[in-house]
């Protein structure tokens, strides 16, 4: 087919676009994904029994704020990386900011603690399971976000896969806060981050095959 004929074909009856916007796609994906993560939490884990007391502790909110702000930062990255030619600009700063913030709090917590208590601050009670549980909870969000992204047009597939994975990890971590008994800043700054990076790295590794269009 000649290019001119092909153009005519594309333009004929093309009409107004009716495809849902990126905002709507990701809102839907996040809603389904978060609901899925919640379902996994209720089915395989449980909401911690002393939640009503824990919500009175400032550190609970610092932890929640950390993962929630990472969700927002990676959501911005996901939006921009889904659109050809959009620049990331300040988005990496919005993602790294909370991480450095949490590390700063962790350093203060270390300095403040007795030397013997420091390993407990870092390992807590659940370091062996925390990253894997966050990664498990991220699965529904991961699938929903990658599907939405594929319908858009990412051009840097590895980076897009990484951001999509990070978003799913961060949303999963928000949900995981309802279960997790840990409140040490060093614990959150390392093991939570590791848990969120697992889906992010999976996204980066498989981005090229998952997201090609």
């Amino acid at each position, binding site marked *: 087919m000649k*290019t001119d004929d092909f153009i005519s074909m594309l333009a*004929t*009856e093309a009409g107004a676009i009716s*495809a849902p916007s990126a905002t709507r796609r990701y809102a839907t994906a996040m809603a389904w994904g978060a609901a899925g993560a919640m379902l996994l939490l209720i089915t395989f884990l449980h909401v911690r029994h002393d939640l009503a007391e824990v919500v009175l502790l400032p550190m609970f909110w610092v932890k929640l704020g950390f993962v929630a702000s990472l969700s927002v930062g990676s959501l911005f990255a996901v939006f921009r990386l889904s659109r*050809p030619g959009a620049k990331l600009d300040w988005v990496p700063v919005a993602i790294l900011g909370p991480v450095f913030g949490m590390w700063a709090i962790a350093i203060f917590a270390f300095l403040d603690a007795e030397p013997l208590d420091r390993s407990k601050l870092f390992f807590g009670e659940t370091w062996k399971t925390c990253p894997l549980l966050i990664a498990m909870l991220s699965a529904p969000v991961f699938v929903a976000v990658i599907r939405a992204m594929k319908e858009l047009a990412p051009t840097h597939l590895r980076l897009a896969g990484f951001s999509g994975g990070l978003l799913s990890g961060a949303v999963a971590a928000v949900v995981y806060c309802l279960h997790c008994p840990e409140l040490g800043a060093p614990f959150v700054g390392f093991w939570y981050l590791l848990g969120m990076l697992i889906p992010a790295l999976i996204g980066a590794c498989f981005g090229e095959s998952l997201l090609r*269009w």
Partner: protein
Amino acid sequence: MQRINREAGFRAKEDRLKDQLVRGLAGDDTAYRTFLSELSAHLRAFLRKRLGQLPDEVEDLVQESLLAVHNQRHTYDPGQPLSAWVQAIARYKLVDLLRRRSAHEVLNDPLDEEMNIFSTADTDAAEARRDLNKLLDGLPDQQRLPIVHTKLEGLSVTEAAKVTGMSESAIKVGVHRGLKALAAKIRGIR
């Protein structure tokens, strides 16, 4: 002075093409056709310059990029420079082609070169080597028939629905999915 004139030229071009696309996205098929047709000349020049050692691939890649622009046109944000959006799509399809051929060395220019895609145009279309008609024939009926009736024979969606016995929404979905499947077939056969 000359440089200022040239930049004013890009900007005028950018504004005009953007206007045509935005009208096209709102349902003006004539504006959209003009947009695609002007865009094809810029894509051709851009890709020909970068595929110096694979001249036979240029027209195929122009068509593939046009199809990508069409299928992904809902991702264009009018607040964004059109040249950046188009260039990112053309680059993506070019890199995809080179990856498939694992022939990075044939690149003439570094890809990140800051040249505006609207600064060059080439209306001298070569014959495409790939026959899109053949690829269209390979699509399943519920995608092929809507495309043939509405896009090649020029029937309206309502008429195409009558002829095929499909619902109007099935016609629209069929066209949409069919063109996406066409892009997937193009990726697959190289």
